[in-house]
């Protein structure tokens, strides 16, 4: 029973990591940029929603605030691409990494300046409600996180597989040069990928802030999401989700069964292990990239 509870709560955390990793991999695949501000975009999205809906801010209804926040953060991602990232084309990957790391600092600073540094929870309908299931106490928030993630990834899958734009996004990430040859507007697709990635990050942020709390430093979760993306192979969307779930599930079990002080290290130990056992998956992705 207890391990089932640990599993559910691990899966819920893993969903959040997985969604951040998903946004990270989306951008990496389509534009080859490593966006180290993905976690901070998640945090910003959570704060924007919180700023719209929490009582001592704007106190808008939750179901009004969520679409507005998703829209705003989508626009934020889009604008980032057309104003900053696009200018980096032709620059080294390190330059892009430095840019996104700096971007993360700026987002953290702004969030702190606007919403303060105290942890805050999102006042959402799923927060803090427990469901009792034959002796098992599950947080409704955790179950909701898992369900929302399933629905969201299902929608993303359908969108990628069955719409013209989704196909163009896949094509751009598989072979950017060929996408140009087909007359796909690659630059606009890249901007839309950043937009989508901002939306997915915000969804992750909303889920995280509903089942716990956020503060400007919550963006550092992005590091775990990055580990998740690497475990998943850095090039695969399902892999990113899976990697997130793996890390998410390992954490609570490690906290329960591994000596305190070591438990936080376990996800990264797993990361190293994966890198040692299956480096080919990751390396082959890198090798396939055309310079």
């Amino acid at each position: 029973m207890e391990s089932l509870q640990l599993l559910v709560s691990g899966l819920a955390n893993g969903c959040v990591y997985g969604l951040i990793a998903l946004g990270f991999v989306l951008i990496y695949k389509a534009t080859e940029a490593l966006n180290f501000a993905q976690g901070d975009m998640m945090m910003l999205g959570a704060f924007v929603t919180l700023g719209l809906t929490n009582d001592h801010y704007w106190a808008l209804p939750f179901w009004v605030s969520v679409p507005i926040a998703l829209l705003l953060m989508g626009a934020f991602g889009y604008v980032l691409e057309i104003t900053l990232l696009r200018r980096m084309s032709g620059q080294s990957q390190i330059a892009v990494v430095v840019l996104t790391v700096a971007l993360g600092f700026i987002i953290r600073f702004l969030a702190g300046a606007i919403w303060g540094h105290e942890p805050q929870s999102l006042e959402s309908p799923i927060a803090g409600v427990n469901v009792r299931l034959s002796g098992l106490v599950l947080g409704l928030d955790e179950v909701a996180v898992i369900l929302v993630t399933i629905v969201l990834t299902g929608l993303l899958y359908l969108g990628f597989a069955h719409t013209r734009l989704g196909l163009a996004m896949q094509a751009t990430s598989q072979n950017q040069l060929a996408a140009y040859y087909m007359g796909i507007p690659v630059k606009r697709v890249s901007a839309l990928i950043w937009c989508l990635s901002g939306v997915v990050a915000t969804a992750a942020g909303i889920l995280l802030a509903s089942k716990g709390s956020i503060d400007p430093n919550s963006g550092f979760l992005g590091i775990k999401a990055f580990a998740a993306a690497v475990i998943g192979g850095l090039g695969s969307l399902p892999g990113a989700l899976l990697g997130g779930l793996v890390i998410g599930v390992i954490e609570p079990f490690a906290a329960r069964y591994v000596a305190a002080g070591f438990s936080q290290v376990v996800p990264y130990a797993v990361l190293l292990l994966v890198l040692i056992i299956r480096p080919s998956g990751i390396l082959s992705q890198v090798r396939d990239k055309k310079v």
Partner: protein
Amino acid sequence: MSQSNAVPMLSVSNIESYYGPIIAIRGISLEVPKQRIVAVLGANGAGKTTLLKTISGIMEPEKGAVMLEGQAIGGDEPAAIVRKGVAHVPEGREIFPLLSVRDNLSLGAYTRPAADGIAEDMEMVFGYFPILKERAGQLAGTLSGGQQQMLAIARGMMARPRIMLLDEPSLGLSPLAVKEIFAVIRRLNVEQGVTMMLVEQNARAALELADYGYVLELGRVVMEGSSSRLLSSPDIQEFYLGVKESGQRGQRRWKRRKTWR
């Protein structure tokens, strides 16, 4: 050529293209008449791919003009150029490996409105390449090299091009597969009325297919002429067709070297 008064499908005049500071083509001019097949020959690094990339808008020409049926397209976005009827079948196929054959073909028609007879065109290309119909649901990356080349050409046809730019379609294929693919290129030219600009190192196969040919060297056109003329030219025979003259080889070769310069 007989149609020399008519507006050519494609004309390129004095274009120069650079990779950063490095000049790759230095003042190329050529014409591709409507409904014809024109071959562009040249050794590695001659600038053939750069020429095609400049025509299809992947690279911008630093100087010179690219005209499609008399309309300037030089400097346009690649998407605009595809929409105007130029399909580029790139060197090395450049298919989308993790998408199905069918999705690859749909992407070839990306610039066209959905209701524009795309389904009919898919049947049309399946008619030319029945193997692609058989493999329609298969991931394109799992096709053989020859099949991937067929897919690249079929994908190009899905744009309903007026002119197709083919970059070394024979690369890495068996003689039999080359024969098969070149036969389809001819049929597409005759039956679908698509003008073809064919870049090749396989000079013999290309000249047997083409009406007219240009020879590039170090980013310049060094020779041009009808295919039959080029095929019988001693320079072409020696440097591109691998025909060796008998006797006194070393000396003859030295003398023969690049009389076009």
